[in-house]
């Protein structure tokens, strides 16, 4: 079976766009609160469409391919993108290459930062602080299995109750 990398997945039905994932991220990585320093970002297309977006850990990640200085590498086991802060010069090619806007250019260091699933913590802190349980760390197949399970349960419920 082809390997799938886990990524932070956001359920838009559950997300209320409170922004706590951004807060938890910037606190964990920079010891401050600032969404501009968060590696996961919320978007609210008013009034009801909302989602948190982070690194999708793409196979053959385009950001890695785009980097002219080989500063980005993909961890073969976890799929996370590692940034060599010495090599990176903040040129932003990776940002352009990313289809999800998931790469942060730190305005202070002028280097990019990418979600590493909180490698130094027990679990990703955005997931921990998402009390709506909209965020999960999962591989796409597991996530879609869960969605199917939920959908079928709903259908079943409707069949049984007639609503």
């Amino acid at each position, binding site marked *: 079976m082809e390997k799938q990398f886990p990524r932070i997945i956001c359920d838009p039905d559950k997300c209320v766009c*409170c922004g*706590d994932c951004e807060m938890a991220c910037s*606190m964990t990585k920079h010891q*401050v609160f600032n969404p501009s320093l968060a590696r996961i970002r919320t978007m609210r297309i008013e009034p*009801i469409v909302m989602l948190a977006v982070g690194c999708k850990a793409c196979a053959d990640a385009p950001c890695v391919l785009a980097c002219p200085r080989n500063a980005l590498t993909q961890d073969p086991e976890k799929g996370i993108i590692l940034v060599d802060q010495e090599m990176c010069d903040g040129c932003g090619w990776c940002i352009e290459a990313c289809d999800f806007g998931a790469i942060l250019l730190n305005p202070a260091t002028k280097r990019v930062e990418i979600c590493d699933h909180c490698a130094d913590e027990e679990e990703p802190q955005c997931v921990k*602080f998402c009390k709506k349980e909209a965020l999960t760390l999962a591989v796409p197949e597991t996530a879609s299995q869960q969605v199917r399970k939920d959908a079928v349960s709903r259908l079943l419920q409707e069949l049984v109750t007639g609503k």
Partner: protein
Amino acid sequence: MYWGKILHIDVSKRKTHIQRVNEAWLKTYVGGVAMAARLAYDNIPKGADPLGPDNALCFANSAFAGTIVPVGTKYGVAAKSPLTGFLGDCLAGSYFSASMKRAGYDGIVLKGKADKPLWIFVDDDNVYFNDASDLWGKGTFETEEAIRAKVGDERVRSCTIGPAGERLVRFANLTNDRGRQAGRTGLGAVMGSKLIKALAIRGTRSVKVADPVNLMAACNKLSEVAQSTKTEKYRILGTPSNVLNMNRLGVLPTRNYQNGEFEGAEKVSGEYMKAHYTEKAVACYGCPIGCEQIAHVKQGPFAGARTSIDYESLFAFGPNCGIDDIEAVIAAIDRCDSYGMDTMSSGVTISWAMECFQRGILTKEDFGGVEPTWGNSQAVVDLVKKIAYREGIGDLLAEGTKRAAAKVGKGSEHFAMNVKGLEAAGYDARGFQTFALGCAVGTRGPCHNRSLAYEADAKGTVDRLTGGPERGAIAAEAENFAGVLDIMMLCKFIRNCFTDLWSEVPALYTYVTGIAFTKEDVKAVAERSWNLKKAFNIREGWTKADDWLPGRWLKDPMPSGGSKGAYVKEDQLRTMIDAYYEARGWTKEGLIPKEKLNALGLDDIAKEIGA
């Protein structure tokens, strides 16, 4: 955290300056309503015209804004109210507050009057005065979007006015983040009178806290509790769940408070709305509860109406106007939000006009050929627009019930449902008599948000259908409790999630600011805040006669339902008010003794207005 900086913007001179405030000052006024009231006291001269250049819009942020403290990203704003002539203090949630914090300010004072329409852009340290001629006339949502597009950055957050604020509708409001409002007392008219269309802020700074480890642990726990049954009411149905409860208790204002039960309540209930119209419950920025019920009308004459629906808006346009067509109610609220107008004052002013029609005081001709009978939903939705644009009878109604009734006369004052000029909230005080006291003495008028006195009534800890002297202390305590939340700027919907609010809230404050703060400090600041607001009113000429209730609640027994026969007896009300003044440590005339003000650290105010 605090920056120790208040940004002053004089729009007449197009000049700004920074006022530095020290830790002692910040610890004394903390934030939100208390800090806004202090700024208002200092920056608005006695007797200022609420719609003149001397009035100042005083924004005061939360110490918690921009941190992970749940429901703590809110701001307070105060000015002299064009509706009451006293202090109008409001609060609102969401992104605007976070932007103000990240831009580096604890507060913003906006005064003067521009020579032409402007929108102000606070971009971290820089302040720009921009021409707003292309924004003037736009609705609140549109204005905010247009400004974001102009700057080209999603992080720009604005506090805007709509057409109602531009036309100085006395209950126009300030709007931010699409449908979050500093809603009451007409602060939108104050901004409109200054020819300011919007105050936009982009803040990019990081927010630091004193004790991240303890803060994260405490917030993790609090946010967890905020998913429990303690907030279930808000998360599932939102505040519209009140409709059927209030109807059962017989306090659901119906047809301009002529009754307390509505035969069509089921059709405008939170349950009905949820089943047929609610798309999603969403949250203010920084809130893990998520109470905002976004309702959407997809067909029929009001197709396209889509906004968040709360109980107070729902009662005002639904039962209170005799309307059981929830689509019309959603439409009326949607229009108010877009025009930038307080839904509660709008609904209650319209219902006053409808009762005038019912009694022949106003005629079909006065309404431009329309018959605004109870339940005439199209007429009500149309009246909302007429008020916002001051068209036809809308010009009269844009003045609010107090002024409109004074003009129309013929006994219509009896059912002009306001105290101090602010229209009443969605609880008939005849069936909630501790709250009746709260309504009479409230510094900004009759407000369920400033006085939580109705909790004693609703929980049944007192006999809600009659008054009593013990209510004085209960009402004062309920004001202080609400006050703590309004100063710390925590949304009231989290109030049941604390095990001991009086110790947990100061702990959060210390984790964030590093300033030592005790239970006693937090109690003192709540008391100081109420005295400050009262002091502002006293300086503006407040007398005991201003603390009273509309005639209907004093004379007309409730005709039917769960509060049948109840009315507020005048002698009992007087007794309760006296007891309240005593509980507050005020004189029999309701003035604040010098010693009291000195004890609260308000020595300068004691010299000016102390009794």
